[in-house]
């Protein structure tokens, strides 16, 4: 990998949630997995995360913390999907 996209200033922080944390998040939001926004397994960010955590299966959840002019820090979640 030539470039770690997570280090780019425009890419918000992504963190892979453990299955327990993921269940917690789903419970907190009162949603099922398929109602979450998706991120592809082939996404550069997921590829970087795979270097750290090893292979990431479909169905895992990634937390995104983004900085925003008006909101400050906001939290979002992405469901990892195939292809």
């Amino acid at each position, binding site marked *: 990998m030539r470039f770690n996209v997570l280090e780019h200033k425009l890419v918000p922080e992504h963190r892979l949630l453990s299955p327990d944390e993921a269940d917690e998040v789903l419970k907190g*939001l009162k949603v099922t997995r398929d*109602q979450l926004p998706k991120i592809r397994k082939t996404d550069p960010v997921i590829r970087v995360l795979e270097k750290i955590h090893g292979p990431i299966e479909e169905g895992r959840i990634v937390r995104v913390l983004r900085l925003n*002019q*008006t909101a400050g*820090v*906001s939290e979002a979640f992405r469901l990892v999907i195939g292809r």
Partner: protein
Amino acid sequence: MPMGGVTKRINAIKFALLSPDEIRRMSATKIITADTYDDDGFPIDMGLMDSHLGVIEPGLRCKTCGGKVDECPGHFGHIDLAMPVIHVGYVKEIKKLLQSTCKSCGRLLLTRQQAQEFMRDLEAQEELGADSTEISEIAKETAKEAQKRARCPHCDTEQSKITLDKPTTFREDGHKLTPREVRERLERIPNDDLRAFNIEPEAARPEWMVLTALLVPPVTVRPSITLESGDRSEDDLTHKLVDVLRINQRLRENRDAGAPQLIVEDLWELLQYHVTTYFDNQTSGIPPARHRSGRPLKTLVQRLKGKEGRFRSNLSGKRVNFSARTVISPDPVLSINEVGVPIEAARELTVPIRVQAYNMEIVKDWVKRGPTPVSTNGQFVPGVNYVIRPDGRRIRVTDKNAETVAETVETGWVVERQLVDGDIVLFNRQPSLHRMSMMAHEVRVMKEKTFRFNLAVCPPYNADFDGDEMNLHVLQSEEARAEAKILMRVQEHILSPRFGGPVIGGIHDHITGSFLLTYRDSRFNHEETTFILSKIGLKEIPKPAKTDKDGTEWWTGKQIFSLVLPPDLNIAFKASIGPKGVKDLKQLTAEDAWVEVHEGQLKSGTIDENAIGAFKGKILDKIARDYGSERAKQFIDESTKLALGAIMVRGFTTGIDDEDIPEEAKRQITDVLRQAEEKVQDFVEAYRRGELEQMPGRSLEETLEVEAMKVLGRARDQAGQIAGKHLGMENPSVIMARSGARGSMLNLSQMAGCIGQQAVRGERLSRGYWNRTLPHFKKGDLGAQAKGFVKSSYKSGLHPTEYFFHAMGGREGLVDTAVRTSRSGYMQRRLINALEDLKVKEDGTVRNTADTIIQFRFGEDGVDPSRSVQGTAVDIDDILQEVLGEEPGWRERMAEKEMTGYGLTEKDMIVELEEEEETEEEPPEE
């Protein structure tokens, strides 16, 4: 009116192909003759208008179901085609299938192993609930993979290349494949292999994409019209089907008679053409079939597609009753919540009223009046147009039957009463680009024939009165009226959700008026004051601010304006008349441009666009936010009336002599312009000699252009400044420009001083003739005059060449706006189609109709801009000041706040980011 909710939810829709068998099974009759009616005007059996296909003439009965005109939905028939033809809608599918299956054994061109792999992938995706686009993606990949193979893995036949000759001709290595051959190949594809293409063989055998029987739509779908002359005019689809039948007949005869192959093939192709255009008459590659008059026929696809098609015109959009449309005109006396409706319209528009015990008397009274009651005192009196019985029958009320109908009215009936003052209606102006394009108003029935409303409501509708028309819709249910009143009333839309400021507010003369009312120490005598105050219906005059020695009493404009402010309002800001960028309080005070309201009293400053204007009004903004929409409505109504009172007292006019400047100033301007021209000439000469110093990143030519533009731009500004020096605040044009009522100082300086450089695409004019703009100049002339600098002012008039240059610049503006509106309209349409089903749920998330999350919090911060203060939910400074009272230095802070602007600054972000990182996992390294 049945008011049931959704009782069923559509889970899935399945599309399938019609097999020839199914076509014949569902067909009410076979169609064989191209003739429609016999000499007596009766439909011919087995013709296109066969009465088995339904009825379109009243009195006749359908031969299939026995129903009369509105009972029989119509039935399909069919045509047996002499030779198979390809369905244009499926050529892509057919091509894909032909290319990825074997020419001799029909198997998928993949090894069993490969095929199974793809199938597994498909099944896995289906199980995970992937949507149709993802599944079709896999199917596409399968086909792509199969096409690569040159030899069949099952029977070892070498494959040849299949190409598509648009629209419907397939070729194999150059020679034609007839539709029959195509069909035979498709027939050979085994069911199991089809599943790899995501085709369900039970629903869609591929050979059904090559038609052997053609479904004929019911006559109700293609009714014929009887003209006044008694002639019958058939529908376009019928015309097309006649063509198909004729050729089909000839083809069959020729084939059966054993005609030469060539003739049969020609007819076959002709049949293909007719069937193709029957489906889609805009197929590329073939000429559209035309009517005898030369008009292209409107066939199946044309009925559905585009803006005038079934979807956009009849299903997404509908024509409605209880609506009216007419020209609009202004009426400043109306409240912003009202709309003036002409009597003629009010007589046609009705509100259904359910008759109950409590309203029986009054309703009977209404009905008794009939549809056109005569008024006794010049006031509009509502009548009743229709009465609806509980069984749904409508009875038209006329002057004759009014009395008798009124007697029969009972509880449970519905009476359609004409509009009266206070009814809630929706008012709309196209294009409806935002939610403020359709707002709820209260009716005021008025004389004359236009819709009227308060001028402060022009900006949200983007309306003016140069002939604009608007639509009005009368709400028909109590629920709708309540909802509209709460959500759609004009006063609820004073603050825009786009930028959180007011979109409703003073424009034009309202601003001029409040300027005249409040500028400096403007004062009014007793008569004037009573006149102005009478506009807002004030009964008592406040104490005069000043009394002269001779006993004349004076009221200041600031004092009068303060009457409409909430008594506890505190605010300070810079007025629009204040010069840009100036932060110095002293200087602002000197120009009366520092507005300060303390405890509801206007202490200093001029009320102009920055105070009460639409989009910019600070006082308006604050009142709407802190005191609610009702108070804001009252403020707008009253302040606009005050302003109009003031402008009527003072009088206001503008003319071209507003831009008169002394001879001396004119000389100065000519001097400035001459110097600028000389300077440009110097640059040109320097460029010619090669002495011009090149700017970084630009060529020598570009450098010259930039320098020239700079010099000439500065010259225009200087001319404007010189002119502006002689145009003071007593000048009506300047009042309008500075207060923000209309026009700008640039407009004025172009009228009085110099119009300046004309540009196309941001560059000085250069095109036209060889190396020059016009034949009036030497070739290669790079001077100011030759490249579109207009020295004259609008007032002095332009020289012919200048006039031409000005037209060139002006044309670009026109073209730009035309292009922009069409392009942004399309963009808007796509955006709205994508966003229309999103809504904010109770938990603050934004979701679509499938209930999947789009945003975890609305806008990521959960703040409604129309209820926020500069992007934050609470304005702590403001609250502190309110609670603690006036603290020293709050004025300065106000000035300061203006500078910091919106939300967090970049510096704030970095601090927050560092704090955040301590709690978070270290960013991954690589």
